């Protein structure tokens, strides 16, 4: 399943790159792409574990950039 999320308050391009790298390593993630300037996260993960993966993704994002919020479009 592929879903698009809005990344709120994503100020640092380097942080976005780090987040993307970490998200790709999460179990169950097929692909992830963060477009820093468009403030969008495209997440592709296996259907059955999508919600669990999303929780993990949010944790990872907060650990890199605590001010940034992931919002469902």
């Amino acid at each position, binding site marked *: 399943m592929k879903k698009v999320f809005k990344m709120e308050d994503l*100020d640092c*391009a*380097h942080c976005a*790159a780090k987040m993307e*790298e970490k998200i790709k390593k999460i179990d169950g993630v097929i692909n992830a792409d963060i*477009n*820093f300037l*468009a403030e969008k996260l495209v997440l592709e993960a296996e259907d059955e574990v999508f919600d669990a993966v999303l929780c993990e993704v949010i944790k990872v994002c907060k650990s890199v950039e605590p001010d940034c919020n992931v919002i469902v479009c």
Partner: protein
Amino acid sequence: MSSKQKKKLSRIVVSAIFLVAAVLAQRYCSYKLLSSVFYLTAYFITGYDVIIKAVWGVRHRHFLDENFLMSIASVGAVCLGEFFEGVAVMLFYHVGELFQAVAVSKSRKSIAALMDIRPEIAHVKRNGTVFTVSPREVAVNEEIEVNPGEKIPLDGIVINGESTVDASALTGESVPNEVKSGDTVLSGCVNLGGVIIVKVTKPFEQSTVAKILELTQSTRAAKSKKERLITSFARWYTPTVVICAVLLALVPQLFIAEARVEWIRRALIFLVISCPCAMVVSVPLTFFCGMGCASSKGIMVKGSAYLEALAKCDTVVFDKTGTLTKGEFTITEINAVKFDRRVLTAVAAAAESHSSHPIAKALVAASGDDYKRFKVTNVKEFPGKGVLSTVEKWDVAVGNAAFMQTLGIDVADDDQSTVVHIVIDGNYSGSITVSDQIKQEAYGIARKLKNLDVENTVMLSGDKEQKARTVAQELDIDKVYAQLLPNDKVEVLQTLINGSEGTVAFVGDGINDAPVLALSHVGIAMGVMGSDAAVEAADMVITDDNPKKLCTALKIAKKACDIAKQNIAMAVSVKILFLLLGSFGATGMAGAVFADVGILVVAVLNAMRAMKLNDA
């Protein structure tokens, strides 16, 4: 500037004031403690959140977090007694971060403004009263009133009033069009002159504005090679520089008899230059601004990878009908055998009425309402050939000469024109000749493309050889492949891709073009005439169907790529230069961080140049 950014700016200013005060106190005041207090105040005002984030980072095991590295560098400086350097590092680091944040939000806002074509309201006339509602609430055939200065909220036909209309939000063309009763107007345009009453032809969800907005939302995960290069570079750059810093602090002091403190100082300089921010933000920003510029000219680009691919294009393949020609066939000749001409046209139109082929549309248009009187069943369409159907009680076959041959009927083939033959109940009943016109904007494209490094121009067509050649010759296109069935187009494109050094772009709009659009390195669809399938498969969409926009897109793409290359070269060379200077003691920490922030500022400003295009 947002309030968050304003707060940061005030902290920077206050900190800078304390820094200046500290320098003055150091010089003129014998009370040593005073300058130290000023320095530390300046440091904490600007540095407290960096240190907090550094601790947070360490807790989450991010040791190469720039907050951590900056903190070590500045704390290290303070420990070595270099108060000015310590504060300078924090201060300039913040200036850099703030500048980056402001530039990014400014770019995001101006590009969002370019795409802000969404109309908020519509004035709809119901039972003699005008209601102001959301455009979504207006139904087809209702009448809306558009005042001067307002955005036209829905697609429709003018039924009253005369005005001029600005379509620049859709097409990037700033020359206004005159409209009067009977003219079609599109949503998203701005009404300039006088009040017009428009009869709505499409609901909001299917309006031009809605379609374009959907395009702007459909950003694909397609990053350019340069962006991916920078991301991989950044990944190993920081750890490498940090390791070098550690080595620099520990190793040379074993061999060279200089003070240990000096080597630690130089190692701290390395830490200051260890953040690849200038590159990581400026390259994507360049492409983002380039894509924004393209949007303002009516070219929707779905990902930075496509802009980059277009810049390296050396072959452009055009579909003929609908791209280089208007795609609206008109009937030029009717030869009826036994039947009345009008009836023949109506029967042919009825048989073709379910098809979306341009020829079918021409027949339907010429027949007016006549064809609707016939009952049509058992429709079977043969792409590239014709249609079989039952019209009332007749078995009707409508198609080209090749189609006729498969039915066992010999017809004289015409090289020059597009002829549709009609067979009713097995008897040849006549032919209708249709012709298409070359778009005015298509002239001169080939030459312009050659000036933009496109060595090969190719045209593909399902039409006859001679017809296609005539068009190609008129437009100076190098190669022609004619009489292609939809599957052939894919094969031809693959051959062209295999044979070219640069990338291959394909410009087309038909339903059958979707596979070719997907296969090419850059697939470009016509926005208005283009089928939904083509627009969906394409990587770029030209919203006003003007093929000349391709040249504009190429210019924007090349400019963006050049700027990106400049930024990469500048950022990498300045960083390496200062790493060398730092290791030889030729620069202090303040100099290094100033240069680092300086190159960030230059790279970001350079990136924003991609938003403008000097159109020749």
